[in-house]
């Protein structure tokens, strides 16, 4: 076992290589560029710096179909550009890993300052119905570990898996234990071995294109069921029980690191696989009278939590990339006072 000091973004790159990454295409963007830099000198990885993020995601789709485990990394603006082809990868069932190191948006926003504004973009960014698996670790060690899981889940589900990070965790330096986690081998036969037709059109084996609603329903159902099945293997969350508190805090990513300070006063639930949502939250939430979601946006995950639990959920919204313990504490107290 080796202990090394690594930056969050470096951890993703190094873990990706260990997880079998063979092809990387990317475009420079703060705060994700270190992943590109870290991979440049890797001898086992074919790397292309593309002209934009659209080219990057499409190049990794091609490479993955041709048999190479592939990844790209970006931040919010680039992630937006990739959305159309993320839908394509779901439709064509191509295993990919897409890393999004979030920064303050919308638009150019505040580069390098962390935010969590892409949570909904992960789930609903592309058009049509698809069911992405999204991991959002909150430490360098977890980024390392979940990079492996992201690659494995992509192979198992034949779909693009999103590894969400943020400017804070991505640029964080921590000492971690470098381990080799399990690797799932490729099952999809590479291009040049058969006469398959990969298309973004609604399709069935014998029909490359169709306008039959039954075939479409069957296809979407298949995509959904497949994701449910695979994501069961990755029911990853952290729960810090507090029997003396009647309030549960829900946070993820950078902001969840701050909530540990409140564990004497509150219970804490931190989803790591943020989508599809982990159903265990229903049982956990039943023990608490109040639920507060803390997130670095104007309220994205809070709606998803409310929808799943069918009850009122409070929000602590942190905007502008500044995480201030005092500020969060006073917002929590205010919610308590209102009760």
């Amino acid at each position: 076992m080796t202990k090394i000091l690594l930056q969050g973004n470096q951890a993703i790159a190094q873990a990706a290589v260990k997880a079998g990454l063979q092809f990387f295409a990317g475009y420079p963007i703060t705060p994700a560029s270190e992943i590109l830099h870290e991979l440049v000198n890797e001898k086992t990885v074919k790397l292309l710096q593309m002209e934009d993020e659209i080219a990057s995601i499409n190049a990794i789709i091609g490479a993955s179909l041709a048999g190479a485990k592939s990844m790209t990394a970006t931040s919010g603006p680039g992630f937006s550009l990739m959305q159309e082809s993320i839908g394509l990868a779901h439709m064509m069932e191509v295993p990919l890993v897409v890393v999004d190191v979030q920064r303050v948006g919308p638009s150019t926003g505040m580069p390098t300052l962390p935010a969590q504004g892409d949570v909904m973009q992960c789930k609903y960014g592309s058009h049509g119905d698809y069911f992405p698996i999204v991991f959002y670790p909150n430490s360098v060690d977890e980024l390392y570990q979940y990079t492996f899981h992201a690659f494995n889940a992509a192979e198992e589900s034949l779909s693009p898996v999103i590894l969400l990070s943020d400017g804070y965790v991505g640029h964080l330096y921590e000492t971690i234990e470098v381990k080799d986690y399990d690797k799932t081998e490729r099952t999809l036969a590479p291009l040049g071995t058969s006469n398959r037709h990969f298309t973004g059109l609604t399709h069935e084996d014998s029909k490359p294109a169709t306008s039959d609603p039954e075939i479409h329903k069957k296809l979407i159902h298949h995509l959904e069921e497949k994701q449910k099945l695979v994501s069961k293997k990755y029911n990853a969350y952290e729960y810090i029980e507090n029997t003396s508190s009647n309030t549960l805090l829900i946070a993820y990513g950078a902001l969840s690191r701050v909530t540990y300070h409140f564990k004497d006063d509150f219970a804490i639930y931190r989803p790591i696989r943020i989508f599809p949502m982990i159903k265990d939250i229903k049982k956990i939430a039943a023990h608490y009278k109040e639920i507060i979601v803390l997130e670095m946006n104007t309220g994205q995950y809070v709606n998803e939590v409310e929808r799943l639990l069918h009850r009122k959920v409070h929000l602590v919204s942190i905007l502008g990339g500044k995480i201030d313990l005092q500020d969060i504490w006073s917002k929590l107290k205010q919610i308590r006072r209102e009760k």
Partner: protein
Amino acid sequence: MTKEITYLNYLKKERLPTQWCPGCGNGIVLKLVCLAMEKLNFSQKDTVIVSGIGCSGRSAGFFNLDSVHSVHGRAIPVAEGIKNANENLNVIVVSGDGDLLGIGGNHLLHASRRNTNISVVCIANSIYGMTGGQSSPTTEQGSRTLTAPQGSAETPIDVQSFLKAHHCYYARSTVFHFNHAEKCITESFQFKGLSFVEIKTQCITNDGRRRGFKNAYEMLISYKENYKINNKAEVLEHNEIGIIR
């Protein structure tokens, strides 16, 4: 004994006839690509066809080999990813001018800088046919379209200059000049680096009829009348077809 040259070996026969309109030129380009592959003995197992979106985007689905029908404009980066992941594959892009030169124009520009060893066959019908006949990047100046009823005011795109500057293969031909087009495509498949063959073809349904052509045959004959073969040219004029290496 010379072997019999047929285009049928590379097509999924059960998918024929194609769904394209009567008089469409896309089928001719499909045949040209198959003949070039046949001549070069491309193995079905080592060849991949990639297409984008549009009428021509449907091409990939007809080939009896692994094929990818990507999103609009992104066939070239997909093809580059495939080639970079497996250099032994023959990677061929078959797509339209709107797809490759309009929405995907930037990818062609940069793929030519990288000079990735892929072959691009551009079905240039000078119109967005599938969406009803809007102006495309290769629409001739003055040509009437759905979105330019008074005639297109814009200069058609000319990609030969940067492809030549980046040491890529560029050739232009038409579906009327069948043998010339076949030569262009066959040579392009042998080229080491990025090759781009622009095949001018007709869309009677959403272009020709708006411009006064009675049928596809008249459009074909117009290629005979309007284009002169010049294989020695350094730069092809707008009414010339030929090969720039």
